[in-house]
């Protein structure tokens, strides 16, 4: 019996779909059986990020409306074994699906797969509730900026009301240079504010753009800081103890200040 994890954020554009694609691929590379589910009905994109758009025949809507079997609607990944995609319908609206129907799909999928990752749409409406309906756990993706953190805080409250636990945090697009210069909220400040467990930090990596252009998730790229960060997160998700590396956010002055405060 596997587990269902919803990947969500509140705000759009913080990296939910990129994270779902990369974590799904990374988990499959670690020999886990994985299904990634696009819950963004009407605005699907997970198939594009995975480079699988030409292979999608059926969607979750076809399964719900009994036009095809669940197993038949799953699209096999081109590069990794044990990785499947369940696409969302592009012609329907988010409220065409009810939470119980998503829950039903999740229940069936986790019988056969180790990990079911749900790519949630942005927002706090029906689409979000559908995405969270069948989830056992949640991963909140945020970038280190005011709007994204504020929305993440709201989403955490909503998920807690639904009894989803644990809720872990992924901080995406952190630039150690900007933090050092004092122009980006630091990892520790984000953690202090949101006060949930940290699953990992993805450094700003421009390689993501090329990876999306090609439809090849970043984790396939060797020696990319983003890919390495996603691989570490995936290892943590499988229960391995992998330390979160220090990104050297402290400036030289901070280090001196810390040294002084330790002396006291």
């Amino acid at each position: 019996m596997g587990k269902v994890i919803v990947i969500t954020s509140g705000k759009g554009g913080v990296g939910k779909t990129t994270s779902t694609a990369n974590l799904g691929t990374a988990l499959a590379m670690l020999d886990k059986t994985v299904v990634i589910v696009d819950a963004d009905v009407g605005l699907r994109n997970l198939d594009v990020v995975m480079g699988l758009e030409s292979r999608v025949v059926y969607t979750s809507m076809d399964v719900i409306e009994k036009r095809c079997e669940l197993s038949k609607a799953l699209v096999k990944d081109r590069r990794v074994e044990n990785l499947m995609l369940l696409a969302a319908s592009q012609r329907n609206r988010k409220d065409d699906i009810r939470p119980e129907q998503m829950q039903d799909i999740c229940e069936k999928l986790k019988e056969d797969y180790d990990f079911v990752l749900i790519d949630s749409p942005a927002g706090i409406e029906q689409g979000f509730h559908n995405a969270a309906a069948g989830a056992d756990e949640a991963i909140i993706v945020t970038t280190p900026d005011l709007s994204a953190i504020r929305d993440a805080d709201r989403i955490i409250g909503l998920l807690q009301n639904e009894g989803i636990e644990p809720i872990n945090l992924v901080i995406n697009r952190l630039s150690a240079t900007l933090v050092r210069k004092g122009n980006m909220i630091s990892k520790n400040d984000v953690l202090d504010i949101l006060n949930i467990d940290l699953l990992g930090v993805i450094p700003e990596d421009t390689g993501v753009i090329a990876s999306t252009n090609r439809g090849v998730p970043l984790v396939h790229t060797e020696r990319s800081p983003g890919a390495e960060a996603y691989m570490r997160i995936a290892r943590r998700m499988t229960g391995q103890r992998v330390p979160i590396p220090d990104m050297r956010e402290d400036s030289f002055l901070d280090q001196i200040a810390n040294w002084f405060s330790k002396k006291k």
Partner: protein
Amino acid sequence: MDFRSLFTRKSKSSSIATQRLQLILTQDRFEVSEDSMKKLQLELTEVLAKYFEFTMNSVSMSIKREGNSYVLMADFPYSKTNKIR
């Protein structure tokens, strides 16, 4: 005094963001307006002022997430020289 303030002329934008965020989230989590917040703070201060002496503008309130619930935190700093009346 903070050691760092000797070297940096203006406040860093990240600390401004963090401060703004703390205030925004306190209101979001509280689900009350800024006016109500200030009113509550004032009324609490009035009650406590019967027993303690402190400067009104040093009082601060925030809401922190602790597991599945929230903790309302109010700081009423008063100096040691002040005596309980």
